[in-house]
């Protein structure tokens, strides 16, 4: 079986989404003796995170936890995504140029960059790294984004030219993700345990089920980060993570899992609460491929039946933002589409009557992730108001949910956050679990891919609106990024729009 490349990419997006969205690979953690506030030197930092990496090799192991820990910190890319502005900015590339036809990218590299194993970073490594993504060495599905690259030419040790086989508005953006990470040919022997990159940090220790410690290295090419030692501690349990912060076990909660407890921290002088945004759209999927949701009126009825603000209030204590389509507010083509299908139970009932359905029973198969469990109960209750009985069935995430909903598409309704950046494209995939097939939407996206940048934004906007009007799904809200930190910790990545928990700008006063 050979899937069309877009399908693979789309699936990849989904797979990634579900992993990042959940607590898939989390585990226990411990607090080091240095976690004691009295002993804590200013140059160390302990950050609590939810999902633990299953291994340290993101070339063969899926999951958001690995790039979260390693990207930009241990591995660097030619260009990175600025967490404040959401823009693509140079990193290892001092500068880059794009040809007018959008096919040729010329990167000028920084000099005197070395890998943590001592090897020098040159244009050869760029060529090696990009070609390695295309080779069998990479097995994770995200590699498909690199298939667009036709050739890589090294013109000097500090200059490299990448030729695309077709123009893409997306490729450079993808280069800010893990597939753009730069490897050394001599440093890929034991990626699962010994990552070798050009970043300011090296892996110090990785205690499975517990924590991962990064330490700065002396020969970093750029400005050394302020915090010399960062420990990433993994908590399966949200309450345990909160308690760790309250009792001094950690300094930062990287992503707060229990929004209701935020008030506790907001009231406490010791802590600062940062509210940012993410790429995670909470998608209430409806199986477009089979009744009753093959009827657009039924789908629209569901959208009208839902009071999304109430869902947001219950699920995330009101943090997060209502959207209305598959676009987070940080994307350039975002527009507020919440008025396309406002909360209007009467309208919902009218639509259902028009579609000729009554006493609707739908299988609502959700993953056992906290937000999904909470949100689904509100959804169920609201749907009951308009006469739709949603039978909630909780499936274990990832394995069973992926199997039943994602692969077999055996569901009527589901609910999961898709956190992959710029992932509206998944709706263009007819084989995706949404079952949404619309040639017009597909062609709009296709045009957008090769259009010039202004047109690109306009076409994407148009596509998003069409999705919303077709009620291909419902978009409940975009997940908030909630960070709680001790007052003296500054420069944390407030918005989670890249794959990295970027520690390079963090300082302790």
């Amino acid at each position: 079986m050979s899937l069309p490349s877009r399908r693979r990419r789309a699936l990849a997006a989904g797979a990634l989404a579900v992993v990042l969205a959940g607590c898939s690979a989390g585990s226990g953690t411990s607090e080091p003796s240095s976690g004691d506030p009295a002993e804590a030197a200013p140059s160390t930092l302990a950050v609590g995170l939810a999902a633990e990496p299953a291994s340290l090799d993101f070339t063969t192991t899926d999951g958001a936890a690995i790039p979260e820990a390693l990207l930009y910190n241990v591995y660097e890319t030619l260009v990175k995504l600025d967490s404040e502005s959401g823009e693509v900015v140079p990193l290892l590339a001092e500068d880059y140029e794009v040809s007018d036809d959008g096919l040729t990218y010329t990167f000028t590299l920084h000099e005197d960059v070395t890998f943590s194993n001592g090897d020098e970073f040159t244009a050869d490594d760029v060529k090696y790294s990009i070609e390695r993504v295309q080779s069998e060495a990479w097995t994770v599905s995200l590699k498909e984004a690199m298939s667009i690259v036709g050739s890589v030419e090294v013109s000097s040790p500090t200059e490299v030219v990448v030729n695309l086989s077709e123009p893409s508005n997306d490729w450079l953006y993808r280069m800010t993700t893990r597939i753009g990470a730069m490897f050394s040919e001599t440093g890929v022997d034991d990626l699962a345990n010994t990552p070798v990159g050009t970043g300011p940090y090296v892996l110090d220790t990785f205690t499975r089920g517990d924590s991962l410690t990064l330490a700065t290295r002396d020969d970093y090419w750029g400005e050394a980060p302020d915090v010399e030692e960062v420990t990433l501690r993994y908590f399966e349990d949200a309450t345990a993570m909160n308690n760790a912060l309250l009792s001094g076990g950690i300094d930062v909660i990287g992503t707060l899992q229990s929004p209701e407890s935020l008030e506790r921290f907001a009231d406490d002088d010791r802590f600062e609460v940062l509210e940012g945004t993410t790429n995670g759209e909470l998608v209430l999927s409806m199986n477009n491929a089979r009744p009753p949701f093959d009827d657009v009126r039924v789908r629209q009825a569901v959208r009208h039946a839902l009071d999304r603000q109430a869902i947001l209030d219950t699920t995330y204590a009101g943090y997060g933002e209502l959207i209305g389509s598959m676009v987070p507010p940080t994307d350039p083509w975002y527009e507020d589409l919440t008025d396309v299908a406002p909360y209007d139970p009467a309208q919902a009932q009218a639509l259902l009557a028009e579609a000729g359905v009554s006493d609707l029973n739908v299988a609502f198969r959700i993953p056992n992730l906290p937000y999904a469990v909470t949100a689904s109960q509100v959804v169920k209750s609201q749907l009951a108001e308009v006469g739709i009985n949603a039978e909630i069935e909780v499936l274990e995430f990832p394995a069973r949910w992926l199997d039943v909903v994602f692969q077999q598409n055996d569901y009527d309704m589901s609910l999961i956050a898709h956190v992959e950046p710029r992932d509206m494209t998944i709706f263009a995939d007819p084989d995706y679990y949404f079952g949404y097939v619309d040639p017009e939407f597909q062609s709009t996206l296709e045009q957008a891919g090769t259009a010039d940048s202004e047109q690109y934004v306009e076409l994407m906007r148009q596509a998003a609106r069409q999705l919303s009007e077709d009620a291909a799904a419902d978009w409940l809200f975009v997940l908030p990024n909630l960070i709680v930190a001790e007052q003296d910790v500054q420069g944390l990545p407030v918005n989670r729009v890249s794959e990295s928990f970027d520690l390079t700008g963090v300082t302790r006063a």
Partner: protein
Amino acid sequence: MLVQVLRRLAVFVLSLVAASVLVFAFMAVLPGDPAQIALGVSATPESVAATRAAFGTDRPLVVQYAGWVSGLPVGDFGSSYVSRTAIGPQILDRVQVTLWLVLCATALALVLALPLGVLAAARHRSASGAVVSGVSQLGIAVPSFLAGILLVTVFAVRLGVLPSGGWVPPAQNPGEFVRHLVLPVVALGVVQAAVLTRYVRSAVLDVLREDYVRTARAKGLGPLRALARHGFRNAAIPVVTVLALQVATLLIGAVVVERVFVIPGLGSLLLDGTANRDLLLVQGVVMVLVVAVLLVNLLVDLLYTVIDPRLRAG
């Protein structure tokens, strides 16, 4: 007596084999292809097939079982489908953690339950005995995870005297090791102590009513001395039985407490493995837990023959 020990050992080995078959067979029913899961849902069929071959999951189940079980005695549990690392060392790491937890909790339970149980029995008519009985009843009724959560809230969050959770290996920092161990051990041990207290109480009460204790008193031994010299060893038999059952409960209770206190022990490994469908890992952990329980049962059976000469008869 030797015959008996040998027979008991044979039963133990047979139980191990039966347990391994059960565990393996059960895990083999799990839906989902490990290779598919490891590669992510969008992997190509070719790479899935290759991975399947690498995992060995394309072989017949019997062959897989034989391969798996033959590695167990030497601590080879195979390699994780998810992290691609050897499972044996991981389990070994985690076992040490859980073992500390379970042993300390057992010790705490014993230290609390023996005197309290004897007190409750000796004074079972007086107020102090009734108080001990009542408190132990309440102690049993509180789920250990709730106890854990409350302990953290009070001692770690409110008072800040102890860490809220986590683990420091004893070799790294003995002081911190102890500090981190206190709350989970209390959460696990106190509930067990409550259960044990009641068994000690009833065992001692039973023994106090035995003729031989009266005989001892007729010889001139005071009530406490009669109990100590003649009662304890006899009371030990039911108590040891319960203790054995409790070690099993503790191992499993540790799963819950490890979750509450974020301790990287066998329990969290089991839960992670389950969530990730790390089939071999789960299989390995379950097997280790089951072996531990069977081993405790074996030890207890052997202990019986030490305590009770009546069981030594050939």
